[in-house]
């Protein structure tokens, strides 16, 4: 079974096992599943804990081979142990930041896992995402260094350390890591929430009311600040749309489960107002439509996504591109170069983004290294050459 079929089947099983209908409508998916490949795909998502719980449901148990349940149980225990470590590190970090006077908001997984999965062992935590005020950047940096964290460069980055510092300034985030015994803690520190260049210019995520709409969550025994559920949804959906270009099951499933858990509580008027630009509404709309299509209309009503995603904002065949991205295993540079120019809700927006890629070296060069200086008139050709080279190197790899 190829990857898209596998992913479709996994989503179909999630939809069926979360369905309110009994007996399950799509139980046939469980009968003809290729379980070894399915288990491998599940383990790649890091969601063994969630699937172990899901498959252990009384209604599904008899349909799934015992060996599958046992394999997932073992993986789930490994995930749980890993997360116990992350949770304890996060609690210590939050205590320390509080003592250092650094106001912060915990983002993504750690902030809502307990709510949407019922425990914090459902999926692997890969890092601790923190939002701080820009003015606290230096103080936080000093604190992290004192705690033994070091700043690191993403391995796939091909430029110089100076280029990476430029990129960090541009994106408003830095990555830190610390070895503790045999284990490693990763932190993504954000002093700004920004879309990747060149999309940050037209999405202006910085101006969203992140700090004004927050709540509280317990991390271990430490109270932490998190976004309100509306802002969590906006952040999660935009992260999936912009950062992952709708690729990969893990973030999509999590987004779906978030909607499943909070859909009735979300203040959609607030979300519509906060996502004030047609471009931003379109990104949220595509996410909502994907959830409705793959998880069923009961998860997010079609009236909701239609409001965010008017027909006029989409090109013919555009939605199919996003569906294809969802079925891919990992995000790719190619998907990035296709999805980004497609993302705006208007033709002028799309042209503006395309011109950013062609005429502004930061659109493509920064990730590669900016030592080459080219005359302005040559830029579009040079940028296309760099894009082609990046794509070729990825396909060769």
């Amino acid at each position: 079974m190829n990857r898209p079929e596998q992913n479709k089947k996994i989503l179909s099983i999630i939809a069926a096992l979360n369905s309110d209908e009994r007996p399950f409508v799509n139980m046939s998916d469980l009968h003809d599943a290729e379980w070894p490949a399915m288990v491998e795909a599940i383990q790649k998502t890091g969601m063994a804990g969630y699937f172990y719980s899901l498959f252990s449901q009384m209604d599904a148990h008899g349909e799934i081979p015992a060996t599958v349940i046992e394999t997932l149980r073992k993986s789930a225990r490994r995930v749980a142990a890993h997360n116990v470590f992350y949770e304890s590190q996060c609690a210590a970090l939050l205590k320390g930041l509080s003592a250092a006077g650094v106001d912060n908001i915990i983002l993504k997984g750690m902030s809502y896992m307990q709510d949407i999965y019922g425990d914090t062992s459902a999926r692997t935590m890969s890092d601790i995402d923190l939002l701080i005020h820009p003015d606290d950047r230096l103080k936080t940096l000093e604190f992290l260094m004192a705690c033994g964290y070091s700043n690191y460069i993403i391995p796939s980055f091909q430029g110089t350390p100076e280029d990476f510092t430029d990129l960090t300034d541009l994106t408003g985030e830095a990555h830190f890591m610390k070895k503790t015994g045999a284990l490693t803690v990763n932190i993504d520190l954000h002093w700004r929430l920004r879309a990747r260049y060149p999309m940050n210019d037209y999405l202006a995520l910085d101006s969203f009311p992140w700090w004004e709409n927050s709540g509280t969550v317990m991390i271990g025994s430490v109270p932490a600040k998190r976004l309100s559920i509306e802002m969590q949804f906006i952040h999660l959906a935009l992260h999936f749309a912009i950062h992952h270009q709708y690729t990969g099951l893990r973030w999509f499933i999590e987004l779906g489960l978030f909607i499943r858990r909070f859909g009735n509580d979300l203040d959609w008027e607030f979300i519509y107002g906060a996502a004030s630009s047609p471009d931003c509404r379109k990104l949220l709309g595509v996410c909502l439509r994907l959830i409705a299509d793959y998880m069923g209309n009961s998860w997010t009503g079609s009236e909701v996504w239609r409001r965010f995603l008017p027909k006029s904002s989409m090109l013919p065949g555009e939605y199919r591109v996003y569906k294809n991205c969802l079925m891919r295993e990992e995000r790719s540079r190619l998907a990035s170069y296709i999805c980004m120019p497609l993302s705006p809700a208007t033709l002028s927006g799309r042209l503006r983004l395309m011109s950013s890629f062609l005429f502004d070296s930061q659109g493509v060069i920064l990730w590669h290294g900016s030592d080459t200086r080219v005359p302005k008139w040559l830029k579009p050709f040079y940028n296309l050459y760099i894009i082609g080279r990046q794509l070729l190197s990825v396909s060769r790899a």
Partner: protein
Amino acid sequence: MERVLKKNPDIIWKDVKGETILLNPINGKYFGLNKVGCVFWEKIDGVRSLPDIAELLLGDFNVEKERLLKDLEDLIKTLQENNLVTID
């Protein structure tokens, strides 16, 4: 002299779905304890002796004393081998 168990202070643990997951971050190894093991782990406080803990467990679980003591010896051996507890 009666043996007193102490938890390794480096160990972190959490109850997850009816199991207690113990993690030793120094070597990255982790262990799952079942319900009895979980209650046993809770009662290790560096003060109570092993027979004291066994008595408490006999009150909590409907099990023969000999069987419980045998299981506890096995469990303690595993915990010790993996540096999760020390015995004074």
